[in-house]
């Protein structure tokens, strides 16, 4: 096992995919000589030439629409959106074309591609550079939505995304880019559609994805002191979603907190909470709680820590999981049956 950053693992995944599959082309803004503002495409142009890895005009709808055409011609585009909010100009192309072309043509025309989106905050970025935009894509049928939280997953999921017959929005948590982890390349971890238990525990399940996974893990460690043995599940692929792993875990622990960095309202965490209570209702000792970013535009750097789901906030939620099997008084009413 080697120690490397997630950035390096992503870079290796791109390089290996380009090596293995001639059809793979990488393009976007500043991905060529510069190697991307996060250096994820570092060295690819030098190694594979400027036909395989190239800069485009500065236009995101153009980049994604161009990828649609390239995919139609038989290539495998991997495009980079420079930051989360700068993918919004491409939203029409993503929602109305990338997501729908296969279905529109009864499967005759598919446009496999990977749209890489460095997302979320925690890096002191200015406005529009830290959005958590995964819910927009997850709510759009026809897209797969994937987000790694470990170095090995970054490599493996990106390789799988590039090989996938369907378009994949590949959300890269920026704050994890330069954190290190263990991986043996070419790493192959669990396939799309499988959540992974990152930490086993008996008392409650924390469900998280992307940038929230390390927070959940840290919270689980801290919770030991309070006598709680928490399980942590990493979703990994939001679409397709793994109901099995999650349901199994929550039915076992009987308690659940969903952690996401995005603003909460109508986010992916809402979907997870809704699914868990649908499927695990009779196993639950307490409502499924959510810890998320606040329902505000992403704040300026000096205030972002208030916005971000913190270990403390997760522990607070865990504390509200009615450990004495008494209902949380805040939710208690005359009508309560328990």
């Amino acid at each position, binding site marked *: 096992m080697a120690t490397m950053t997630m950035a390096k693992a992503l870079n290796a995944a791109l390089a290996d995919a380009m090596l293995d599959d001639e059809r793979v*082309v990488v393009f976007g803004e500043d991905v060529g000589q510069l190697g991307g503002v996060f250096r994820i495409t570092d060295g690819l142009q030098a190694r594979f030439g400027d*036909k395989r890895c190239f800069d*485009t*005009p500065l*236009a995101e*709808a*153009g980049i*994604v*629409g*161009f*990828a*649609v*055409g*390239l*995919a*139609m*011609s*038989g*290539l495998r*585009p991997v495009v980079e959106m420079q930051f989360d909010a700068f993918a919004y*100009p491409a939203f*029409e*192309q993503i929602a*109305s*074309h990338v997501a*729908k*072309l*296969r*279905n*529109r*043509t*009864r*499967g*005759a*025309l*598919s446009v496999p591609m990977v749209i890489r989106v460095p997302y979320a905050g925690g890096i002191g970025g200015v406005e529009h550079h830290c959005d958590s935009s995964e819910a927009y894509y997850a709510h759009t*049928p*026809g897209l*797969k939505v994937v987000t790694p939280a470990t170095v090995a997953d970054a490599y493996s999921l990106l390789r799988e995304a590039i090989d996938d*017959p*369907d378009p994949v929005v590949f959300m890269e948590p920026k704050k994890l880019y330069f954190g290190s982890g263990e991986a043996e390349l070419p790493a192959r971890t669990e396939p799309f*559609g499988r959540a992974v238990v990152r930490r086993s525990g008996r008392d409650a399940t924390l469900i998280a994805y992307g940038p929230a996974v390390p927070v959940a893990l840290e919270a689980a460690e801290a919770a030991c002191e309070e006598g709680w043995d928490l399980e942590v599940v990493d979703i990994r692929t939001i*679409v*397709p*979603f*793994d*109901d*099995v792993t999650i349901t199994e875990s929550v039915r076992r622990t009987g308690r659940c907190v969903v952690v996401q960095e995005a603003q909460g309202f109508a986010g992916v965490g809402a979907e997870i909470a809704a699914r868990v209570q649908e499927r695990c209702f009779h196993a639950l000792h307490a409502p499924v709680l959510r810890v998320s970013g606040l329902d505000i535009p992403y704040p300026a750097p000096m205030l972002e820590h208030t916005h971000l789901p913190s270990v403390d906030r997760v522990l607070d939620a865990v504390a509200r999981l009615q450990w004495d099997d008494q209902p949380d008084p805040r939710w208690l009413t005359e009508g309560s049956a328990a």
Partner: protein
Amino acid sequence: MTSTPQAVRRATPRKRRPATPAAPDPSAGLLPEAESVRLLNPDGSPLPARADYPEPPVEALREMYRRMVVGRRFDAQATALTKQGRLAVYPSSRGQEACQVGGVLALRDDDWVFPTYRESMALTARGIDPVEVLTLLRGDWHCGYDPTVVRTAPQCTPLATQCVHAAGLAYGESYQGRDTVAMVYIGDGATSEGDFHEGVNFAAVFKAPVVYFVQNNRYAISVPLSRQTAAPSLAYKGVGYGVPSEQVDGNDPVAVLAVLNRAVAHARAGKGPFLVEAHTYRMEPHTNADDQTRYRDADEVAAWRDRDPIARLESYLRARDVLDDAAVAEIAAQAEEYAAGLRERMNIQPTVDPLSLFDHVYAQPTPQLVEQREQVRAELAATQEGDA
């Protein structure tokens, strides 16, 4: 550093300095002609030939005529089908036959077409099964034909978005060593969209072999051209991308085909995209559901009747003795036959399978879709039981 006393030099401000030596005009070869290219007068009589836009071979013109006649008949039939409830909606391209047919005649079979909802006539002229062309508008599925077989993208309703796809497709083809050309049909209104800008620009920067073919029919539904642009004409957008551009009388079939032939040749030769603006007019409402009396006078429509592209080409071809009454009648009969065949086939209600809704969202359905499919299957089974 000079120390010339400025006050003196400035005393008599001079006029615009003479351009010495005359800088080469950077827009040379990119701007369209000030007036539309035209090879036939409205009455079908020929104008002087042009070396830059050689007249297409007469066989091609005769074939163009044939497809325009069949196309118009198809178009009328489709409109009729809306009245019979066989089509949900139909956007006619009556009046735009020279463009509809010219665009596909300029291409090889292995080139790609990127049509909008208005190009049903173009697609049938390209030889695509009319029932498959009308699938979208009949409502049994979104796209009825296999784009990879007929080398034609699905008819695009989100305006201008296909401009970018075509740039990518054409670049991807040349990237893989094929000399495919992509032809984008787009309306005047859609040129206002950002995707038009981004598409033409990408094509130009990557020298992608795309012909952007604007059918300027002067309206975007009810909105007149004056609300789309203050430019001298849409063809003047090309120079801003470094793309050679031309405007053509879109109701002059000979000129349309001549200009498109040159545009396609330019693209195929690896010189990058070409922008063609055809000035034309749709004679019918935007779709059968539209009320054109709200936004244009009957007089205006009537005036365009005199510029009918089919009559124009017919009179020219008759004068050149490649068409006579018999040939005209024979082609009309073909058109009738085509329409009759279509009518008959469209009378058969298509079968749709609700469970097919889950088949093509992804290559393999997600577990969530499998679950939903099972639910729908159970519902259908219950309904059938209930019915039985």
